[in-house]
């Protein structure tokens, strides 16, 4: 589904990603872990098409298409969804309106019929229930004045409504209480299928109890320095990252 080859990216002349190789197949769940500042969010934003990051080398193929050539909106329409580490507040734009516009734009791109207000509301209601979100948040402006946890849950609601092929969740678990964590994980798991894949960026093994990954990768200083199964997460939880850093410096 997604194949990243030797991806280098920099911002303001500073190289952040230094040769990422990474492959995600349909049906898989990948976890990316790694110390602060290692480039996890950068990778996520580059995949979503943030133009402030300059890709200097490498390629990204998504569903057979050169992803790097697509605009951010077309990437979303092709089925990529990024749950932001820091969701943006947009005063004056209602949450419902954003979701309806987004869903219909995506449907138009795929040659599907536009949903009318009623059809959309039915769809939205179902998804709202799935992520156990307070209805009142729907009519409020996008993330405007939302608590940290509400923002994260709102990202998951958007994901549930848009039903992407590849979801990239950037620290969606941080700032969530235990119940919310379970709900968010539940949302992700419900969406899981043979056609979809998920990449979760997290600092905590805890989330991975709920969203069980097939692979765990460690991103360090702009490179994936180690990959393994879910047991790697436990190892990291126990030992931290220092042993990997040392190992890497030896190489």
């Amino acid at each position, binding site marked *: 589904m997604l194949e990243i080859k030797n991806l280098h990216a920099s911002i303001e002349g500073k190289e952040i990603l230094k040769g990422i190789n990474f492959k995600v197949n349909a049906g898989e769940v990948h976890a990316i872990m790694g110390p602060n500042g290692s480039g996890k969010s950068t990778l996520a934003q580059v995949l979503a098409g943030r133009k402030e990051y300059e890709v200097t080398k490498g390629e990204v193929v998504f569903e057979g298409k050169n992803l790097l050539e697509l605009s951010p*909106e077309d990437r979303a329409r092709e089925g990529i969804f*990024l749950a932001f580490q820091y969701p*943006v507040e*947009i005063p*004056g*734009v209602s949450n419902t309106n954003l979701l309806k*516009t*987004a*869903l219909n734009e995506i449907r138009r791109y795929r040659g599907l019929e536009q949903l009318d207000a009623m059809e959309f509301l039915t769809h939205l209601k179902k998804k709202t229930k799935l992520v156990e979100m307070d209805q009142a948040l729907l009519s409020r402006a996008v993330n405007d004045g939302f608590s940290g946890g509400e923002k994260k849950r709102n990202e998951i609601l958007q994901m549930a409504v*848009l039903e992407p092929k590849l979801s990239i969740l950037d620290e969606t678990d941080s700032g969530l209480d235990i119940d919310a964590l379970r709900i968010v994980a539940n949302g992700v798991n419900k969406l899981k299928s043979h056609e979809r894949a998920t990449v979760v960026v997290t600092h905590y093994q805890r989330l991975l109890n709920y969203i069980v990954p097939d692979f765990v990768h460690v991103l360090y200083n702009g490179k994936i320095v180690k990959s393994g199964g879910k047991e790697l997460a436990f190892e990291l939880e126990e030992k931290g990252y220092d042993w990997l850093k040392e190992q890497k410096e030896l190489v």
Partner: protein
Amino acid sequence: MVERAEGTRITMNQNSDIKTWYIKNFETFENNLNGESTKPIHQIRREAISNFSKLNFPTNHDEEWRFTSISPILKFNFELGERVDLKTSQIKKYLFKEIKGNILVFVNGYFSPSLSIIKKYSDGIKVGSISEEIKNNSSIINQHLGKYANYREQIFTALSTAFTIDGAFIYIPDNKIIEEPVQVLFITSSFGKKIISQPRNLYVAGKNSQATIIERYVSLDEGVYFSNVVTEIIAGENSKFEHIKLQEESSSSFHISRTEVDQERASNFTSYSISFGGEIARHDINSRFNDEGGECSLNGLYLIRGNQLYDTHSLIDHAKPFCNSHENYKGILDDNSRGVFNGKVIVRRNAQKTNAFQENKNIILSSGALVNTKPQLEIFADDVKCSHGATIGQLNEDSMFYLKSRGIGEEKAKAILIHAFASDVVKTINVEEVKKYLEEILEKRFNK
């Protein structure tokens, strides 16, 4: 535009030639008035033309006109417009059909009885035209017209006053309410002629009265013409008066307009000044608290592009204590358009317990667009709460990316954010039809 860039160099020649032109026109105008020249109003007209002849058109050297050069307006010898008959079908689209109230239609500045719909009132409410009131020797006209808009120092107001011929007249006696908003439509149909029309409006709201006026300025063709508007509003004690002005003139026209508001004790005045049209458009809006307990809310939205220039000069005069004013102007500027906002608030020495809040925010959609914004607070009382803020910026990049990352395209994302930006002005409009109309315009403009 060359004229605009060289605006400071209006030659004295141009200035005096065009003045001579209008003065000459006044003679013709006066001769055509027939019996009317014996009326009291005519003394005012004459005084005004004499002031006009002494005043000079402003240049960029005048502080109040620093960023707005009117030299393009002075290039043309505008003639008085003619009375033209239009069909209802030609003007229908400029009326809000769901609003069932009075409709006053003016074509080229002249009242058109056949296009207007005036309700019959038995309780003294008057909705009609200035020309009719002048003909009938209305005491209200004699009492109020020209008393608020300064035709001694302001040349455009002097010009308007000299040529006072017609406009909207609304009088609401004490304790009366006009339930439905009154629609006042000024429509220009110039057929390629360069005409000037000078709507002169007078709205007098008595004690405890209430009314909403929707004033709309449009044209049938994209011609070069000049609307020079003066509106005087008297908001009586405890009255509630709402004035919505939609300026949608041809983009090659000029629109200079002055709104003067006199606020009596505990009156509540709300203004919306919405501006889309005109090559050069300027709105001076001044409100004065003549007594305690008044509320004044001035709102504005200007949405301009191309080479349009829009200039707001507002003045809220807190001459008396215990009054609140609230000003919120928003601008959206594209291409090479220019915006000017000058918001003056005076809090006089005895005007304690004043609350004055002012905000002007602008979004620039293109590197060629420009805004000059200047809040001007002059506070002479000590127990007051005043705040002001002005911003000029682009659409927020993070918000744009967030929307796009959800599959929303560039144009639509822009439209959504612009709509959101404008919404806190638009959504407070109480007239549902106007609100809907403005939302449609915002949507259409940016959502291609």
